[in-house]
């Protein structure tokens, strides 16, 4: 078994881990409200629908620079949200079907754009949207552990990590400022409306935040991981507690554990079993998030399957 030396760890694994961590934290944070509002699949729809925007951004700018692609993704995400709303309203189509129609059409458009000349030549493919390029984030700043104490080293953090950290800070600020409103709308939109709080507006805001997280994260970790992270940590927390602050804290904890643990599992796990290739970190993080959720489903103290069964057995004689 070969563990990476310090330098490799610091310049390859550490930045990737940080990027995964911030991506997971921001998605887990926003995911709480999506899960409570039953909008979980908006994340799925948006992260598929950004594909044509990314390719169009590339085709227009003609380079693999990030800015045009991110702009394209943003435009695509906003249009996807608007189109879904439009199809729902104008056609009176059920939400799930509306999402299905819109995001698959946009994804198909993206696949076709990819096959056109210029995009083909630089080998831009849909894989980068699905899996991201976590392993491609390199940090040449640090030289040895002690250099991490030097603030100058941190100034050279890779752009992706800074971007994800900024988005996380932004989401955290928004959630903390509007916690009361978000909580109210999540649990009782009708009451929110009667109190004069426009619940529809808040819900659009939640979807917009989710889109922001998805766009910031897809480049580094891919859309599959974004979907997993928007839903699994929040769902895990939902099974473990009833109060909003606890829910948010637990989901962030679950997100952090999944990000770090999943990365380690992907990067070093295969070597432990004597397989000398690392597996895709995005995939292993998504898998781990599912495992943690499965554990919560089975063993959660009050809402887990086993606890409910025990409770049912305990109350059965009393009812008989």
């Amino acid at each position, binding site marked *: 078994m070969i563990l990476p030396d310090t330098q490799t760890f610091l310049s390859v694994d550490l930045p990737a881990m940080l990027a995964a961590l911030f991506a997971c934290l921001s998605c887990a944070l926003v995911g709480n409200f999506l899960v409570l509002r039953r909008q979980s699949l908006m994340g799925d729809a948006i992260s598929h629908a950004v594909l044509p925007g990314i390719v169009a951004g590339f085709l227009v700018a003609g380079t693999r620079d990030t800015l045009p692609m991110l702009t394209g993704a943003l435009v695509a995400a906003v249009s996807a949200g608007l189109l879904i709303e439009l199809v729902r309203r104008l056609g009176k*189509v059920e939400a799930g079907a509306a999402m299905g129609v819109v995001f698959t*059409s946009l994804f198909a458009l993206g696949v076709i754009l990819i096959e056109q000349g210029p995009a083909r030549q630089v080998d831009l493919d849909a894989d980068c949207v*699905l899996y991201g390029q976590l392993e491609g984030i390199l940090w040449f700043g640090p030289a040895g552990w002690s250099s991490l104490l030097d603030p100058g080293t941190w100034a050279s953090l890779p752009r992706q990590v800074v971007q994800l950290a900024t988005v996380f800070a932004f989401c955290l600020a928004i959630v903390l400022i509007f916690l009361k409103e978000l909580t109210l709308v999540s649990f009782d939109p009708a009451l929110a409306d009667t109190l004069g709080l426009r619940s529809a507006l808040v819900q659009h805001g939640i979807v917009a935040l989710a889109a922001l997280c998805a766009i910031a994260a897809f480049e580094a970790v891919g859309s599959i991981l974004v979907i997993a992270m928007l839903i699994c940590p929040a769902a895990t927390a939902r099974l473990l507690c009833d109060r909003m602050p606890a829910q948010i804290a637990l989901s962030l904890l679950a997100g952090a554990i999944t990000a770090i643990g999943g990365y380690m599992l992907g990067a070093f796990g295969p070597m432990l079993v004597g397989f000398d290739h690392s597996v895709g970190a995005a*995939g292993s993080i998504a898998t781990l998030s599912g495992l943690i959720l499965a554990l919560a489903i089975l063993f959660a103290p009050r809402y887990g399957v086993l606890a409910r069964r025990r409770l049912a057995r305990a109350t059965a004689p009393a009812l008989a």
Partner: protein
Amino acid sequence: MMEGLPFAAMGHNTAMVLAGTTALGIAAGTVGCFMVLRRRALVSDALSHATLPGIVIAFLVGLALGVEGRSLPLLLLGAAISGALAVAAIQAITRWTRLPEDAAIGAVLSCFFGIGVVLLSVVQALPAANAAGLKGFIFGQTAAMRSGEAATLAVLALAALAGVALFFKELRLLAFDEGFARAAGWPTGRFDLGLMALVTLVTVAGLQTVGLVLIIALLITPAAAARFWTDRLGIMLLVAGLIGGLSGGIGALLSARFQNLPAGAIIVLVAACFFMASLFFAPARGLLARTLRRARLRASLGAAR
């Protein structure tokens, strides 16, 4: 290859692929109606993503058993098994926990796909394995399809259609009034299982052609479009089958004629055009028809006053 291909000059292979995608479109459109009516359109999303780990495991099993290359039936069997597991997981989560169905769908979808991605990266690192074909299942690879494979898929699609015809009564009951059906003593759970089996069949048949992301579109879009045309289930099934079949046929033709149009994506876009046209111009619930009806009603109310 810009000049048109007359049908007579169309190769045997292209004709078979055309027939295969048309059959697939008809089957997917018809089966999809029940998913859309049951408001469970996105379960098919999870199902199709969840086929990936099954495909890769089946590939590994084939490798271990010494099956040469990739055997399509084995891969499709794996896909069907893991897809069915995913659907079972979604139903178990919604039934036995407090999580809503959409969260269950999203969680199952992303985790199964994540497992698939991990397994795929393992397979690609294996020196012995020629895993080149596996990725084709994600985005579809009609161009590489052989006529024998197209025939297999057409047969699968026809089997799904036969299933709908056979269980029409039961599926209709399930789609419109599940509560009544259960109260009247019908085994709705078993009907639901049957419907999911049909959806799995269509999904698995479509993996090779349009890929696992875009097969969702063939299940949802024609059915959602057909809903604009009528309020009767029988007609809706016909319209959805027609739209699905036309999308499959036109898409395959376009993709055969222009070489940089991948068939799966163009089929989905054709279906999306049908959806848009239906949204605006369909006679029963289309936007134009509804607006006209409302205007006429307003006029008649004005005349009466």
